[in-house]
């Protein structure tokens, strides 16, 4: 097994473990914002698309990268904005926004 794979698995397993622990504490009340929030975070695939779109490896890679950048940006921008819009609505009885 190459070191790179082992190293990647290391990170993957630990991150998944942390994710599980952290997300376990999210109340059902916030499950929808959680979903749209994690979706915005997974828009991080933008980082991979950026390199494909800007590197000029070849036309196909650039074109695919460009589409991927567009899709991922929709998720990042739209995801964070709508999560915030949703969270703004959650208020306590006294009427103060959380």
């Amino acid at each position, binding site marked *: 097994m190459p070191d790179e794979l082992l190293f990647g698995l290391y990170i993957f397993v630990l991150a998944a473990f942390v994710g599980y622990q952290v997300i376990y504490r999210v109340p059902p009340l916030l499950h*929808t*914002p959680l979903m749209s929030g994690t979706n915005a975070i*997974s828009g991080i695939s933008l980082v991979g698309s950026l390199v494909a779109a800007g590197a000029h490896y070849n036309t196909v890679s650039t074109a695919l990268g460009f589409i991927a950048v567009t899709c991922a940006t929709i998720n990042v921008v739209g995801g964070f904005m709508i999560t915030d819009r949703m969270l703004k609505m959650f208020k306590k009885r006294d009427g103060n926004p959380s």
Partner: protein
Amino acid sequence: MTGSLIQVAYLAASVLFILGLKGMSSPETARRGMLQAALGMFLAIVGTLFHQDIISYEWIIVGIVIGSAIGAAMAIFMPMTAMPERIALSHSFGGLAAALVGVSEYYRHAAELGAFKTGAIGFEVVLGALTFTGSLMAFGKLQGMITGVPVTYRFQNVSNISLLAITLGIVVYLIFVPSHQMLFYLMLGLGFLLGILLVLPIGGADMPVVISLLNSYAGLAASATGFVLSNNILIISGALDGSSGFLLSIMMSKAMNRSFRNVLFGAFGAVTEEALSETRSVAGAINEGTIEDAATVLWNAQTTVIVPGYGMAVSQAQHALRELVDLLDSANATVKYAIHPVAGRMPGHMNVLLAEANVPYDQIYDLDDINGEFSRTDAVLVVGANDVVNPAAKTNPASPIYGMPVLNVEEARTVIVLKRSMKPGFAGIENELFVQPNTMMVFGDAKKTITRLVEELKK
């Protein structure tokens, strides 16, 4: 030098993502948490722009501008009621982006890829493609463009599982023979096809599980991209997203007392003839009430519990409902909302709609917190919920939903059920609750009924 700067930005972003998710443990810290996560994203993107391979920015800028415009427009103009659709769409974008990056990497390196990278690309492309079409299918079903009734045919499970096995077989084969291009594109096509076929037999009532599962796949696809590009931030964020979606799907399945396997291959809602005739026998005398009857019951109740369901979302009754509750509140009655984990079409669906209608979240109770209180409740108002209040889940072992935790509304003194008609719910199951002596059925559109109730109570 820039390489290590990028890594520092990624590390900071990872920490900010985890802190952001941690903030989600309470509505008081959630907004700040998401701001931290957004800051992390910003750092990661800016850091990446310094990547040595990037030599021109024109396509990046065009892509980001178009993507931001579409994303912002969707965020600003999409009504809250369309939230399940938006989430399904964003999963499909995430899946597509991952699949395309995978294809681009394969196209670029094809033969010279090592076994490990090819394997990672295989998973990335299959998961990404499957998430893309699967989420589009979910979107179509939620929009009503594709029938929400499970589509089944003979040998469906056998053919789906074989197809899945063939696809995985190709992934494994490519690990040993990475240069076989035709197989690679066949695998991509199979990924797209699988997404369609796997969501086809899943009914509308199971959407919360499917959406959570697709959320998880989108995350895993991003993680696989990280393995392909040797990019740690992708691996970490994908793992966070993947475990979040996975955990949510487990919670949703539990709330329906069904296994993953059962949701994915059970084609719930395609009730067999036998089960139908079994449950039909519960039919009895229906106690139909008028608006005035319902208003009297609510007016005299000291304690009232509201149980919203998908019907509330369909008729957008949340604002009218809030008005009704305010009226009862001002008459010194105690009013609570009880929300079943799978009410609606995605996890937390009802909470968002109620929040939109300015319902304070400390008035909303989860299944476990409120189930002991129904026997001490004067009136329950069921707004477009069906399966989650069906006592058959506790009493009738022949019922398809037997064993599912439900809200014990029938224990209350009076139950008022607002429903469009006597048609059975999504799962096609008759509801014993509707024929119980302490149940009053009020037929009609939920929003109109509640508006008329408010007028009646104001008198």
